[in-house]
């Protein structure tokens, strides 16, 4: 299987996104913003269609449009403080509206379907370089802003007292989310992309560890989910994105059951004989 060039490309991209997505996802989930991932995934579809219509690399198109949408969410947050979910509906409407209008106008030079469901056949060398670049840049930025992001997520006011530039970092973070999403759509597809961002983190949270450990476990679960999803989808001849989402849910359920069993066993041990 790994003798095929397309499979090597897919494996490389999968590895990149399996590290990148949970690193971004942990902050989104802890901010209770995991649905932003879904909204921006739809924004990336609009970016893909714009890219295809303008003969620009669709991943690049997705990155630019998703970044702009992320910045728009951040901007609208001030206007809709009490209706945060409404912001997502606005951006979702804009993105899906753009995507459907361009697709239905028949102006695309290629098929956008592969971006909806994800495909391992369509990853090009340029995509690989772009995704590698985005991933390295994003991970380095995350390392640099690690403590600031923790505090903005945990307690924005305390971050402000410590002179953290909260607004600026929130904008930078929205670009990081955009880069994770645009790196992932080739393989995973728009429809299940948010599962790559949220589910490994949801699984790691069940282990009730500290922040660093939760982040590392999130990456571990993410690599497991995506690699299993990629290899099994190849043998089952199904779309990798959908199957990876199923694997992620399965791993989460497995951890939940395991956790329950451990707590039952320890409760039984504590019972007097």
């Amino acid at each position, binding site marked *: 299987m790994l003798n095929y060039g397309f499979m090597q490309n897919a494996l490389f991209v999968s590895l990149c996104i399996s590290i990148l997505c949970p690193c971004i996802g942990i902050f989104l989930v*802890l901010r209770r913003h995991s649905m932003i991932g879904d909204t921006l995934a739809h924004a990336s579809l609009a970016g893909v269609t714009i890219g295809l219509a303008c003969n620009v690399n669709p991943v690049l198109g997705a990155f630019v449009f998703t970044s702009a949408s992320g910045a728009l969410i951040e901007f609208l947050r001030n206007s809709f403080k009490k209706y945060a979910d409404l912001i997502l509906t606005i951006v979702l409407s804009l993105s899906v509206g753009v995507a459907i209008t361009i697709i239905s106008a028949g102006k695309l030079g290629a098929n956008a379907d592969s971006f909806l469901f994800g495909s391992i056949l369509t990853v090009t060398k340029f995509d690989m370089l772009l995704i590698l670049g985005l991933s390295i840049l994003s991970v380095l930025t995350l390392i640099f802003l690690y*403590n600031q992001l923790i*505090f903005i997520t*945990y307690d924005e006011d*305390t971050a402000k*007292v410590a002179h953290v530039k909260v607004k600026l970092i929130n904008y930078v973070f929205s670009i990081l989310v955009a880069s994770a999403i645009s790196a992932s759509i080739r393989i995973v597809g728009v429809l299940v992309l948010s599962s790559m961002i949220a589910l490994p983190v949801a699984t790691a949270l069940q282990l009730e*560890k500290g*922040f660093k*450990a*939760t982040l590392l476990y999130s990456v571990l679960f993410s690599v497991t989910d995506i690699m299993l999803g990629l290899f099994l989808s190849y043998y089952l001849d199904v779309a990798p994105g959908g199957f990876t989402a199923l694997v992620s849910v399965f791993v989460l359920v497995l951890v939940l059951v395991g956790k329950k069993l451990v707590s039952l066993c320890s409760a039984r041990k504590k019972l007097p004989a």
Partner: protein
Amino acid sequence: MIQAQKLYFSYTGLSPYVLENLDMHIKNGEYVSVVGDNGSGKSTLIRLALKFLKPTSGEIVCHANRVGYVPQKKDAIAAGFPITVQEMLVSYGRLLKIKDKRVAMESLAQVGMESFSSSLVGNLSGGQYQKVIIARALMGEPDLLILDEPSSGVDVESQREIYTFLKRLNATHGITVVSVEHNLDAAVKNSTSIYHISGGRGHFCSPERYAKEYLQT
């Protein structure tokens, strides 16, 4: 340390104002409890002092070199956040450019919480949590400590420990303490001065006078 002049504030920018023509001067080394009814603007006042909010008109200036802040307890966020006590303090220290991890442990030791360093913040009791947040606020040697209802959700014994500690910090280290209080007994027992907000305006009075005028009615 904190000075407000002709301060007006409303969330809409229009009348009616939460704070109206408010003048206030908190001097260095004081322990001031800010009291008043719910919605009187106590927390708004300290949020203005911390520059989280902008005055509608007038000004409020804080002259502290470094501020330690103890926010209102937010149970939902703390409970679901996977972070250990040590991780939180070390991470906060990094924001203050403190690279030595021992500073975090020393700060924890000040409030007697060093044995909880590897506990998850979400697993702490109300009192333990508040002590950890005070330890965090003390990192970087602040000259002003601002607390927003430090005793809410805290058991009586921990409340006593927290107020004794705050009083000692103020008396022996000279740290100015400004505390928004709904615990009026603690305000009277521990403060050097009380700032009472009512109808958008405030006035200072001594704890003794406050106890006489407000608590006995």
